[in-house]
């Protein structure tokens, strides 16, 4: 039989261990949070340091007492940053809208309609998921060039609207809507299209919003395709703009203005993320991938 003082010793050491353990956990988590946040802090900090201050600091300072917004003005004046933002906005909105249209129809066909060859078609669709973008981009580049669509929005948008994965995701969600609703709608004489618009889409709105947001993020950050297809500044998206800015724009040394541009470009998505945090994280954990 264990003695009483053994018991109290065990109690005390258990409590101590727990405290030490959670202390270490919080320390490690905070270190990683610092690593994640530091680049954001640095970009914000640098963007409000004046040009002369920044270049005068041989040893970088961790804060500034005389913040300035001049860099933001410079950034917008030196390169057509507003133009880039507008281009990206147009590209993002149109691409996302067309994609939603395409995938809703396709997912509905797979989830609800009966037609010959459906299973074969679905299998073929799924197998397309394995095809890496790098393999098809070469021909797409040739296609768009041959169609004379370089430096147009059409050329930017068309190859970007296809997403087999989102069709799959949406089809799974559509398939969860009980059959009974469909039959009830049929009995009431509702057409398939009306059923899709009036019943399916409202029920699956959360998934649609998630897919929309993920696509918006993807569009906003897209770099490779726009870089291949545009060499006219008037059609640059923000990613290309940033790269242009770095290599030819402000001159390599005006880093504060560069950081101001980076802040301007990053803010829209961060705001979007903070608003739709739960939806985005849930959507990504259901199978989104980076890039």
């Amino acid at each position, binding site marked *: 039989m264990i003695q009483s003082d053994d018991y109290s010793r065990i109690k005390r050491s258990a409590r101590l261990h727990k405290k030490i353990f959670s202390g270490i*956990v*919080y320390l*490690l*988590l905070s270190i*990683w949070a610092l690593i*994640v*946040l530091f*680049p*954001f802090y*640095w970009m914000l900090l640098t963007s409000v340091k004046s040009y002369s201050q920044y*270049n005068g600091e*041989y*040893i*970088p300072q961790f804060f500034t007492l005389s913040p300035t917004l001049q860099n933001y003005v410079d950034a917008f004046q030196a390169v057509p940053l507003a133009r880039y933002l507008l281009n990206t906005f147009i590209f993002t909105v149109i691409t996302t809208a067309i994609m939603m*249209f*395409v995938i809703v*129809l*396709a997912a*509905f*066909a*797979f989830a609800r*309609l*009966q*037609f010959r060859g459906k299973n074969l078609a679905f299998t073929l669709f799924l197998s*397309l998921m394995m095809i*890496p973008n*790098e*393999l*098809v981009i*070469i*021909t*797409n*580049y*040739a*296609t768009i060039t041959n169609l004379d669509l370089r430096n147009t929005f059409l050329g930017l948008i*068309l190859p970007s609207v*296809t997403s*087999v994965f989102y069709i799959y995701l949406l089809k799974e969600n559509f398939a969860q809507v009980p059959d009974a609703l469909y039959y009830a709608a049929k009995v009431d004489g509702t057409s398939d299209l009306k059923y899709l618009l009036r019943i399916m889409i409202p029920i699956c709105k959360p998934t649609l919003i998630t897919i929309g947001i993920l696509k918006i*993020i993807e569009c906003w*950050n897209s*770099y*490779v395709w726009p870089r*291949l297809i545009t060499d006219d500044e008037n059609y640059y998206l923000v*990613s290309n703009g*940033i*790269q242009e800015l770095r290599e030819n724009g402000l001159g390599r040394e005006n880093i504060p203005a560069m*950081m101001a541009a*980076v802040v301007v470009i*990053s803010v829209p*998505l*961060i705001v*979007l*993320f903070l608003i739709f945090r739960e939806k985005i*994280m849930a959507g*990504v*954990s259901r199978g*989104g*991938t*980076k*890039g």
Partner: protein
Amino acid sequence: MDKNKWKGWLYLLPAILFLGVFMVYPLIDVLIYSVEEGYNFASQTYFDIGFYNFSYVLHDPYFLQAVKNTFLMVVITVPISTGLALLISMGLSSIRPLRKLYQTVYFLPYVTNTLAVGLVFMILFKKTAYTDGMVNLLINWFGGESIDFIDGPYWAKMLVMCIYIIWVVMPFKILILTSALSSVNQSYYNAARVDGTGRGRIFLKITLPMISPTVFYLVITGFIGAFKQYSDAVALFGTDLNAAEMNTIVGYVYDMLYGDSGGYPSYASAAAIVLFVIVLTITCINLLISKKHIHY
């Protein structure tokens, strides 16, 4: 009912059109490109059919450099990021207060433009005439010598590259692992605690086997993603990756297609197919290993 036979296809039509033109046709086309020797983009003519393009690519020192770089990035970043993500998710799952906040912060890199934040990393690591940069400041504090990570020695560039890649891929891994951990039924942990199982043993004998499918999923997608590494390199070292000795396989493909040495879709196709074969092989090996190690 006869009408319905066509209706389904009608709904699929937009998707089929887009996928057909921009995915299926290119897929066939890329194979054709890759065997057309001496293809000229302007005149759209070629000399011969054969495997010269592959041979050229495989002997191109730039391509070999890209392959070496890519493999190094994969081998370094995949294990480190997966392990680190596992550690952080374990920590996240064991705390209650502030958990949401940490999760939100950790996810931030996912939604930011990699090109943009890459610039920040560049200025943090870069050594110029005016300043040694933030990171060198830290190194100096610990008594080290300043190093130019962006235009300096190969290992330093590779180091920044890997650090940045890890920074970028962590949010996804942490998120997936955290949700995998939270889906492990609490009663397994209760049962283990009743039996007096230590933390380490719980992790090795219960948690890890239970989430092993997710870990393998992350390793597989991690390999695929790392092999396709490109824009992170551009973000740090600029578009002329060959000059920086930091090109990747995907970067090579794009350079062949368009860029300083560009205009050779046949070489680009051959390189893309080589990449696809590598990724496919590695994925198959991964799947075989995971079959052996996932027990249920």
